[in-house]
């Protein structure tokens, strides 16, 4: 336990500045998204008015997605360790590769938990103000965003493990950036623009029927289960990649 406390302390302390920046960004966005509540408040929609459910989904979804992206994104530790020479030094330290990988995962989980709680707090404010429970949707969006970004991080970290020192850092950084881009494309977060054009018929981006089925899927318990399972698998994958990264010796 003492060992993990040391390892996680090091990682949290190293990522403290980045974390503060992410927190400020998140809070600014959350504040912006809270403006409707602060100005008008939510009430039941009058005849012909847009349903607040869609607006709530949009606002909660935006904040949650941002929280998920910030929590799951690469924390720059690998790069910082190579640059400082700590990666090489870590080979002579008593913690095993497995213990170091577990501490990487624990640090990641700390951020995921923290931004998850912040997103939940935001969803709760909206639920209280508009008398509409968006918590289930928030969890699904959050886990989905975390999974997608962690997948990219896994690809990035895998490529970065081949860099041994400062000299190799730049070249592998570029390769890792493009590698992560390929993963991003593969999971469908980059599109070539065609789907948006096709759905823009008659000025309606998404039909009510499509929205309803999307909404039903998003708020479904099954989706939560699937997202949680995917999250568990991705965490395991992240652990394995970090394990390999700490285990790999210099050529």
């Amino acid at each position: 336990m003492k060992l993990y406390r040391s390892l996680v302390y090091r990682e949290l302390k190293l990522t403290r500045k980045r974390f503060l920046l992410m927190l400020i960004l998140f809070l600014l966005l959350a504040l912006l998204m809270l403006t409707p509540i602060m100005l008008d408040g939510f009430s039941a929609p009058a005849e012909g008015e847009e349903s607040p459910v869609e607006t709530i989904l949009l606002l909660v979804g935006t904040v949650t997605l941002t929280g998920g992206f910030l929590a799951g994104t690469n924390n720059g530790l690998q790069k910082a360790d190579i640059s400082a020479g700590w990666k090489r030094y870590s080979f002579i330290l008593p913690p095993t590769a497995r213990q170091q990988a577990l501490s990487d995962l624990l640090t990641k989980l700390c951020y995921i938990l923290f931004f998850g709680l912040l997103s939940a707090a935001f969803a709760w404010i909206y639920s209280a103000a508009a008398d509409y429970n968006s918590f289930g949707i928030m969890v699904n969006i959050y886990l989905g965003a975390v999974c997608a970004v962690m997948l990219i991080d896994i690809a990035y970290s895998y490529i970065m493990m081949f860099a041994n020192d400062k000299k190799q850092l730049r070249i592998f950084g570029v390769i890792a950036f493009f590698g992560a881009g390929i993963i991003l494309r593969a999971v469908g977060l980059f599109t070539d623009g065609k789907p948006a054009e096709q759905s823009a018929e008659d000025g309606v981006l998404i039909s009510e029927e499509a929205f309803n089925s999307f909404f039903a899927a998003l708020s479904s318990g099954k989706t939560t289960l699937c997202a949680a399972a995917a999250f568990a698998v991705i965490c395991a994958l992240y652990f394995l990649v970090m394990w390999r990264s700490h285990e790999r010796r210099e050529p």
Partner: protein
Amino acid sequence: MTDYENAIEIKSVTKRYDGFTLDSISFDVPKGCIMGFIGQNGAGKTTTIRSLLHITDIDGGEIRLLGLDHIKDETAIKKRIAVVFDELPFHDVFNARDMARIFEGMYPEWDNAVYMQYLERFQLPTAKQIGNFSKGMKMKLQIACALSHNAELLVMDEATTGLDPVVRDEILHIFMEYLQNGERSILMSSHITSDLEKIADMVTFIDRGKILLTGCKDEIIERHGILKCDKDKLGEIDAEDTVSIRLNSFGAEVMVNDRENASYKYRGCVIDPASLDDIMLYYVHRDRKEWS
């Protein structure tokens, strides 16, 4: 804890790179002694140290540290050794207190009181960021960390390079103190031979990936000598007695590998004692035999 005779045993270790090979090297560092590991830049010192610390995998041979296999017993070994690199591998954002918090969980025998004593002795601030330390301060911090978990073996890779003579002397003095209980050993790689001449008990000389000399420092220095003679007398000196010959405008200086024997054999010549620097220099030019 295992009982062992040699803190480090390196047997026929080979490591191949493109353009460089660590060629089946072997040497031992007996328990309780300081081994100076010398050689010019690119000779293979760092590769040897990285191999024995398992920073890099070896292509052949066997390495034992503190009587244990360097790969199979890696975790057990790493709790009992300390390493000092030529550059501080700690992040600039940390301070000396942070490093204590990091290391106390990693090393079972980490002693915060000892660490604080070293910080005080080195006059290192505890709250100042490492990024604002001078090179000397950084090296002292690395040494303070290395000496605070009761390590039985200290490995140093060019640790005194780039430091001013005052700091170097202070650090060498600390190492002497550290060895006093007879249970600890040091492997110190350096190309500053004057440091090793001061503190090393034994010396291993590596050049182009091969071990040329290993043994007791005083014996090595005692055995070698610089024979001074005229160029026309060079023909009288047997090739088997020489390491290499340095020619200058006044004559020749010959490094002899058996000073006592040479003093009988070449009675008319003056033989001066050789320093580690001289020995290194003449061995580096051993293939050319005559150089200037």
